[in-house]
């Protein structure tokens, strides 16, 4: 038998970054086909697209949209950090990028929220 690690071994910033990156990527991957389908409704005419947009004009949907934009932002920033780690000269695990990434994610979330409320 083999012992496996638990959360105590994973409780450090670079690991949280991995988890956020993977889970956000998974959520976005599952969202994309839905997103493409919704926009493809335009083929059936403006009414069809409008019909879907009106259906999506409710708080739960808006919250989900906001969530997805934040996840996209985080996935982008986490991805940039990985590209820097993998392709630029090594200077440790780039934890400064984690902080900046969170900041950008927060800013994007705020910008989207403000735009929604306009």
């Amino acid at each position, binding site marked *: *038998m083999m*012992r496996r*690690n638990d*959360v105590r071994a994973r409780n450090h910033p*670079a690991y949280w970054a*991995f988890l956020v990156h993977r889970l956000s990527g998974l959520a976005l991957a599952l969202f994309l086909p839905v997103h493409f389908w919704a926009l493809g409704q335009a083929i059936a005419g403006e009414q069809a697209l409008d019909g879907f947009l009106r259906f999506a004009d409710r708080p739960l949907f808006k919250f989900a949209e906001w969530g997805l934009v934040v996840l996209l932002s985080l996935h982008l920033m986490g991805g940039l950090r990985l590209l820097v*780690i*993998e392709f630029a000269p090594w200077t440790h695990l780039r934890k400064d990028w984690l902080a900046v990434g969170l900041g950008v994610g927060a800013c994007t979330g705020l910008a989207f929220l403000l735009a929604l409320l306009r």
Partner: protein
Amino acid sequence: MDMLEVRVWRSAGEGGFISYRVPRHTSQTVLDVVTYIQRQLQPDLGYRYACRVGMCGSCAMTVNGKARWTCRTHVSKVAADGRLEVAPLANLPVIKDLVTDMSGFFDKWAQAKGSFTGTLTRHDDFARVPPASPRRQAVDAGIECIGCGVCYASCDVVAWRPDYLGPAALNRAWTLVNDERDTQGAERLRAVAGDAGCHSCHTQGSCTERCPKAIAPTAGIAGLKRMAAKAAMKGDL
């Protein structure tokens, strides 16, 4: 007399934690605690150590969930509330109690072509390697590995992919592909590329966080990713 509550993994079949009470002293290490338990309380407790001064890496175990050298882990640092949990290293088969079978770990070292192959003999002059060259600096950053297994035990990709070579083997391969005297570069790159090799590293960084020698296997693995991908795109892999 302050006492420590120490849970120690004992394996007979499935295994489980047994609790012991150990007298607490100043400047006590976790290895001191395990040794006390074996000598005074549980004579058949199986565990490994050798140098007890942080040179050999034999005493690596999981302490409060994290892989560490027990001889270099002060109880005062990890047992804030007087509690300790000691278990064998993760990701390796448990032989008995705190002892793991390291042969898989070293087999992967060999699979990664983690040994030096040169052309010079003792009749030739010494090779001259400038220590400040970028390649030698890359080697020097990873050369101090003593094969303790802490990084391997800390890596989730090792747990998720049974054939993943692991941080130590890949780090050693990195030090060799950058060694200008070595002649096995192409074969080694082939050995460490792909899903069982460097390209499965997700930069979780647990290896770099936990290495007692402050080596960053993540750095070497990133380097191998670039080299191997370049070779693959050129059709050289």
